[in-house]
């Protein structure tokens, strides 16, 4: 639905639905913290950011955008073949995957997660926070550059 809907706003809303479904899979896997983070970060932030970008690039909002006809058959064949091959491989290898049964998965507590994250994985955590700081500054700079130019032009006039 994310891919096939013709209006791009519908596509963004279907993306929110698909991310909600991924959050339900996390609940099935007994990772409640991840489900909450998924709902907050993806549906709360990412989808809203995508909708904002759609609003700012607003010539295409009302417009119906079709899938291009040149590549669609090749791409469809490639993706269907890939999907088929992956499913076949997973189905053939499924006997190797039975480590524990699903009702024996323990519920992961947020306290343990926090203590692991800040003891064993503290260096990746700091690196990832540096990365998100860089991404924040970079996106602000990228989005503001033209605006500063136009402001300079207005002041020049």
């Amino acid at each position, binding site marked *: 639905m*994310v*891919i096939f809907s013709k209006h*791009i706003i519908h*596509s*963004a809303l279907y*993306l929110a639905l*698909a*991310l909600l479904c*991924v959050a339900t*899979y*996390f609940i099935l*896997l*007994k*990772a409640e*913290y*991840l489900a909450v983070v*998924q709902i907050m*970060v993806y549906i709360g*932030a*990412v989808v809203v*950011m*995508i909708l*904002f*970008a759609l609003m*700012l*690039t607003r*010539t*295409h909002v009302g417009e119906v*955008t079709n*899938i*291009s006809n040149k590549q669609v058959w090749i*791409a*469809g064949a*490639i*993706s*269907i073949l890939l*999907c088929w091959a992956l*499913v076949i491989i*997973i*189905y053939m290898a*499924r006997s190797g*995957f*039975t*480590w524990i049964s*699903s*009702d024996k998965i*323990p519920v*992961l507590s947020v306290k343990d*997660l926090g203590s*692991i994250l800040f003891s064993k994985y503290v260096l990746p955590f700091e690196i*990832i926070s540096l*990365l998100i700081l860089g*991404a*924040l500054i970079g*996106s*602000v700079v*990228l*989005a503001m*550059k*033209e605006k500063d130019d136009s402001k300079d032009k207005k002041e020049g006039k």
Partner: protein
Amino acid sequence: MSIALFKILIANYDIKLWYFLVISAILFCIGIFGVLTRRNLVQILMSIELILNAAMINFVAFSAYQKPESQLGTIFTIFIIIVAACEVGIGLAIILSIYRGKSTTDISKINILKW
């Protein structure tokens, strides 16, 4: 009531690992198809989000079924979520700056790197 029904449903069916892997493979291929076919930059970003979500399901599923006490999959997935949020922010900023220059988000019309 519905939660009790859900618990009964969960208790009666043993959810295998490869169910999650099949779901993830299908989601990944839908994302690949979207990246290959859509012409709008924002929709390509959405498809990349689908691919990242497939990878996240795989991480959490393998971690939960193999070594649930290590919580490695959860930590990896938190990092993936952060990187995906960074990627969407940067990507949308780039799309905005391209849109200001070219006033389009159609990738077949953005050919300024072509020679």
